């Protein structure tokens, strides 16, 4: 491999990207836009659930209970209903996703030491949100119930009832349970793959379309020199984009970063190698720019969004699909990213993922280099 030729190809490619407004926008603006859209938009947390209340009793107890709902950050009381007929109407119109109904006779039941019941009605068209909301509602009611119990016990002259078992949940790595913290690292993967694969998928097809490839074929440039030369600028752009994305994650979204930058760099470099090789392979195999760019999109965005563990946890997937994810290169990268950001893991813990990525990179690169024929069909 002759350095001069590689440099010549790389320089030419860089100039072409620099002078093409679309490529430039894709390379520099897209990461920013994607980070903002996905970062701000992707949020699996549930809070401020629109809630309606129906107090059929109107006693201090019922008011107390409903006040707890109001005080909770998980619920936003949007309407106070007059009658049960209103509930269905409010839900249909989407005004609220949850309705809390305190029936008449609630305080009498409480006073009579019988189990009082509160009705919570949920709009479960979004099952995830609904089940979380139900959980929160139970917690609020449970908190109220515990306090009532304490009061009753005190009135009866008993000492505080011992709690038989207390479960102490400690949350590691993502103390606020901020879904954003584990989504954003995945977004970084998505952005790098999107930009990297898109840019490189065009590089060879463009030369075919414009007729310059035919001339290149007749020169002493070898397949390897061509590939390395062409991918070098995109690799550098990829690193720049990674820096932009990580910067966003740390500064705008305040995702904690506990690992080492060196490990991050290694992971990013390997991932870029895979993504760029995929793009190159597509570009070599498909002569039209439009076709190449579409297939590249399909091979990157789809598996990353659905199967990399970026948004949908892998261990919740059916076993067959779980098996499939082992083939998805992004899985290793997303896992690594999350670990480096939130767990502070280093190479010692992550070497299986990094090795997988490296293996992937080696295989795809070899395929891409070989797929390129230095002859016309």
């Amino acid at each position: 491999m002759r350095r001069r030729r590689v440099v010549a190809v790389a320089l030419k490619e860089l100039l072409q990207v620099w002078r093409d407004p679309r490529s430039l926008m894709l390379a520099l603006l897209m990461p920013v836009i994607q980070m903002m859209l996905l970062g701000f938009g992707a949020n699996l947390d549930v809070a401020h659930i629109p809630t309606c209340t129906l107090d059929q009793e109107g006693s201090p107890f019922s008011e107390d209970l409903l006040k707890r709902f109001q005080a909770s950050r998980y619920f936003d009381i949007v309407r106070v209903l007059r009658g049960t007929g209103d509930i269905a109407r409010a839900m249909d119109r989407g005004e609220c996703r949850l309705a809390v109904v305190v029936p008449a006779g609630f305080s009498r039941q409480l006073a009579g030491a019988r189990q009082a019941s509160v009705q919570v009605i949920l709009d479960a068209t979004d099952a995830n949100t609904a089940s979380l909301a139900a959980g929160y509602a139970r917690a609020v009611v449970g908190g109220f119930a515990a306090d009532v119990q304490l009061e009753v016990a005190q009135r009866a002259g008993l000492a505080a009832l011992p709690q038989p078992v207390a479960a102490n949940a400690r949350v590691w790595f993502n103390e606020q349970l901020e879904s954003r913290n584990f989504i954003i690292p995945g977004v970084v993967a998505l952005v790098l793959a999107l930009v990297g694969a898109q840019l490189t998928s065009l590089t060879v097809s463009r030369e075919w379309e414009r007729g310059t490839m035919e001339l290149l074929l007749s020169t002493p440039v070898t397949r390897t020199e061509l590939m390395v030369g062409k991918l070098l600028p995109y690799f550098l752009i990829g690193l720049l984009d990674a820096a932009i994305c990580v910067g966003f994650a740390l500064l705008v979204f305040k995702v904690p970063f506990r690992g080492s930058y060196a490990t991050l760099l290694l992971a990013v470099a390997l991932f870029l190698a895979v993504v760029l090789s995929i793009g190159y392979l597509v570009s070599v195999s498909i002569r039209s720019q439009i076709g190449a760019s579409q297939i590249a999109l399909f091979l990157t965005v789809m598996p990353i969004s659905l199967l990399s563990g970026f948004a949908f946890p892998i261990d919740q997937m059916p076993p067959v699909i779980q098996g499939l994810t082992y083939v998805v290169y992004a899985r290793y990268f997303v896992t690594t990213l999350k670990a480096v950001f939130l767990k502070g893991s280093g190479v010692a813990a992550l070497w299986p993922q990094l090795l997988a990525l490296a293996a992937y990179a080696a295989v795809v690169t070899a395929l891409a280099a070989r797929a390129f024929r230095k002859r016309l069909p």
Partner: protein
Amino acid sequence: MSDAAPVVSASRISKAFGAVRAIDELSFEVARGEIFGLVGPDGAGKTTILRVIAGVMAADSGAVSVDGVDVLAEPERVREHISYMPQRFGLYEDLTVDENIRFYAEVFEVPRAVRQQRAARLLQASGMEPFRRRLAGQLSGGMKQKLGLTCSLVHAPRIVLLDEPTTGVDPVSRREFWEILYGLREEGVTILISTAYLDEAERCDRLALLHEGRMVYCESPLQLRRRMPGAMIEVPTPAARAARDCLAVLPGVRGVLMVGDGVHVHLDVADDGPARLQAALRAAGIPHELPRAIMPSVEDLFVALVGGGGVRR
């Protein structure tokens, strides 16, 4: 011909694309320092031949050798010896003239000083000096072609392959282009050039006239002219169609072509031809002026050799 071994030698090469035989058992030789033309209409196989010789496309059968290298066996070796300029020039439209030249120079690892010197000389010769910083995409057709040629010459190749470099280009640029080629010839460079303009055949030292993948003829333009059977007579007349209908059926007339100001008659034997034509026209009452012998065009030759001469009704 020169006594040295031929620089390019093609022996019975064939190449088919599916059912279509692009080239069919083609053989020819090119001597060192000559301008060899591959002349023929579109679809004749010119581009395919050049691609095979450049090692960019593999022939189905046959043998090609360039400067002693077996192209089919070792296409990579050939690339150091030749320069190939495909039909669409191979220019990067979003790079400047200078950047394009530099890229191709680097690909052939031309030392920097040499590149600057050669580029300056070539650009000067083609009048492109003032356009060095212009993006290639903004050049006119003639200038793009000259830039393409400059890029292919910057590494001083001894053998140059040009695929229809003058198609659609203005005559002034075309003339300048050929002047550059003649200059190269003086330096001993061997040039293979393909063209669909039959009249460009005469600018070559020797040519291969091609039709549908087969060689119709392979000699020098002068000899081509002498091959023309019979003679070409021009008869100016305002009633070209009537004249055509009248003359086409005469014995000894191979074909009659209507042109803007009369007809061109391809006669088997020249001796009393013009007189006979005049007699026929006079008999039919068709106004005309004195017929005179003209030189057949290369297209006339082509049609005579391939298509059976002119158009008969």
